[in-house]
């Protein structure tokens, strides 16, 4: 068997000896590793290591790890201030494409998305239908629980991009997020609003990203904009603000991005496959 030479041979030796001396106690070995300073380092990017050890072979920082499917959703809802952190209780039913259960039998089921705060429960509490796993979860490699899975797949697929772009849950989170930043009057410019209000996001991304986002936001204005942050989910869909999308010259170009419907509307098969409409001609 060939392989690369180990990066830390002495450490391996030391761990081996500890392992043997502990009476081959696997639990103790795992505890030793995961409670070590090295393992508990931050995964935050360290520019000084970039040239020196780009692959992080010397473990000067934690390697970034991907969010699991449930947390991808939680993260978006949290950034928008929508996440419902309630513990326990019955599952939540987030928006799901219409007709997804059409071929589910014995008994036939109709999926009803929650219209109250349960909509925003953590991914952990999402309703779980074996073999008909919520498409968002499936797209981000959550197992269907038909069989035990020790390690989840890690994929990077176009469906993930489509989910983040078009799944009503994420569209809504994005809209509410933007709404809040726009409505925030604590600071004059969007960049500082992003920094101060959007704590998790600001922490995760650098200055360049914030500047870009701020620039993008400033190209939008909303009328009429509601005050107050948390509205009941129901009314959120009924009275959504209309966001006018401006082009560079400041002329309103098209109605944009503002409305999210709870579930995808009832459409027949053919209509569902219709290419996305370009709305310029009809609505500008």
């Amino acid at each position, binding site marked *: 068997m060939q392989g690369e030479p180990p990066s830390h041979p002495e450490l391996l030796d030391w761990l081996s000896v500890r392992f043997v001396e502990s009476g081959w106690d696997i639990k103790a070995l795992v505890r030793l590793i995961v409670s070590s300073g090295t393992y508990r380092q931050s995964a935050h990017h360290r520019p000084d290591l970039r040239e020196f050890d780009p692959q992080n072979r*010397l473990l000067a920082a934690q390697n970034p790890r991907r969010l699991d499917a449930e947390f991808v959703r939680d993260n978006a809802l949290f950034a928008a201030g929508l996440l419902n952190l309630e513990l326990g209780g019955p599952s939540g039913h987030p928006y799901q494409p219409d007709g997804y259960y059409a071929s589910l039998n014995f008994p036939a089921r109709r999926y009803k998305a929650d219209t109250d705060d349960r909509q925003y429960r953590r991914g952990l509490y999402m309703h779980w239908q074996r073999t008909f796993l919520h498409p968002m979860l499936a797209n981000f490699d959550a197992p269907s629980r038909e069989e035990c899975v020790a390690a989840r797949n890690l994929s990077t697929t176009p*469906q993930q991009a489509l989910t983040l772009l078009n799944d009503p849950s994420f569209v809504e989170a994005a809209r509410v997020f933007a709404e809040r930043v726009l409505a925030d009057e604590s600071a004059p410019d969007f960049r500082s609003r992003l920094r101060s209000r959007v704590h998790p996001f600001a922490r995760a991304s650098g200055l360049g990203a914030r500047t870009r986002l701020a620039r993008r936001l400033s190209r939008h204005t909303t009328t009429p904009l509601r005050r107050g942050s948390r509205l009941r989910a129901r009314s959120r869909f009924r009275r959504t603000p209309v966001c006018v999308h401006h082009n560079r010259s400041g002329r309103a170009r098209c109605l944009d991005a503002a409305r999210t419907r709870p579930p995808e509307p009832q459409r027949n098969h053919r209509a569902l496959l219709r290419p996305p*409409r370009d709305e310029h001609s009809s609505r500008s």
Partner: protein
Amino acid sequence: MNIPPGLEFLQQQQRQWSRRTFLGKSAQAIGALALGSLLNPRLLRGAAPAAPDGRWRGILPAPHFLPRAKRIIHLCMAGGPSHLETFDPKPMLDRIHGQPFPESFTQGQQLAQLQNVKLLARGSSFTFSRCGLSGQWISDLLPHTQTIADDICIVRSMHTEQINHDPAHAFMNTGSIIKGRPSMGSWLLYGLGAETDDLPGFVVLMSSGPSVDQPVSARQWSAGFLPSRFQGVQLQSVGAPVHYVGNPDGVCQSAQRQVIDEIARLNGFHEEESLDPEIQTRIAQYELAFKMQASVPDLADLSKEPQSILDLYGVKKPGDGSFASNCLLARRLAERGVRFIQLYHRGWDHHGDIDNRMRGVCQLVDQPTAALVKDLKQRGLLEDTLILWGGEFGRTPMGQGTGRDHHINAFSIWMAGGGIKPGITWGSTDELGYRYIEDGQQMHVHDLHATMLAAFGIDHTKLTYRSQGRDFRLTDVHGKVAHGILV
């Protein structure tokens, strides 16, 4: 000078790193990171794999020999179809039906569910006919397949190493049962690149029936240690093939375009910081997603298919998730330049009631399969499309009540099209259909992989990828090309 070991290691790493310029010669590239740089057109600057449009053109600068096949449609009959009821008639087995199965065959052999059970021979309840000008034997359960006898090459000497479904599928797809190995579709994409920018290069469709068997795990189309842009993308068979393909209400394509450009820029920042090659994949997948918003509805719009074509395949309701619908979609995917199209049909795991269940599943699969071959042929696509029909293993010549158990020592598949000799039968099994005959025509799964790659003009020993310090290939250290079935 006494250099601490850690530093020495680092210097070695740095030496490798500073040679980033050499990455054009990617066969020796170091691991995923190097490949990631390759995927990045900025680092490529006109080297072989990527074109100006950023499409991945494959790691191989040129084929090793004349390629006959450009794409493959793998009709995976999941569950393990019985060879004894389909392509491998055994009169001797029929004759000893119900009698004890000769121990000389089974002694010391691996069994799945028939352990510690008295083994009785089970003959086939179905008749076979010699078909076409080639006179190949095909079961009367498959009347439509009988009509394409002169187009297909039946391989009766298949054998595998895995006796349970999931590992056997993994073995068939990746040549290994160890998790993290790339599937054959991923290898082909990696080696040859894609012929389309608008759809994934490796597409998976699933159907089942009449009975529902074991699920097929997504690891079967995983890219393993290859970057995940080479992994298979499963399309939904029922309803919209891809969820969330339409924009939210009020969002036009130009707004969507701006969002995607913005995300690409943000990801670009992130990539510069972290050097994670998967971020390039992420950017590319956003781009593909945007294109799929138009290409997928077009792909799935079967309204322009004439009734004669729907009838040929036996499609009752387009997009109903049937194998027939999927076969029609497979042709449309082939026309659009998808490299590897994999259709799973679950429903072949006949431990009991094999006679009725074979009738049921054959009825669903037979006509669309033959239609696909005929349709591709009439469009001139068959000559460079390789079709592979078969399961992950076969079934025992010993009965299991009214059915048959899993069997690894013999099973039948067929291939057609791109580079495959039509109208021949390759390999054979013993008189009871228990084991393949070693006559030079035996076909291990590794041999099948080697032969398939050869049809694509690839020397299977030369398509490698370095992972964790070792060069891996689809055929590992095995594989013998069956030149006899290649044109």
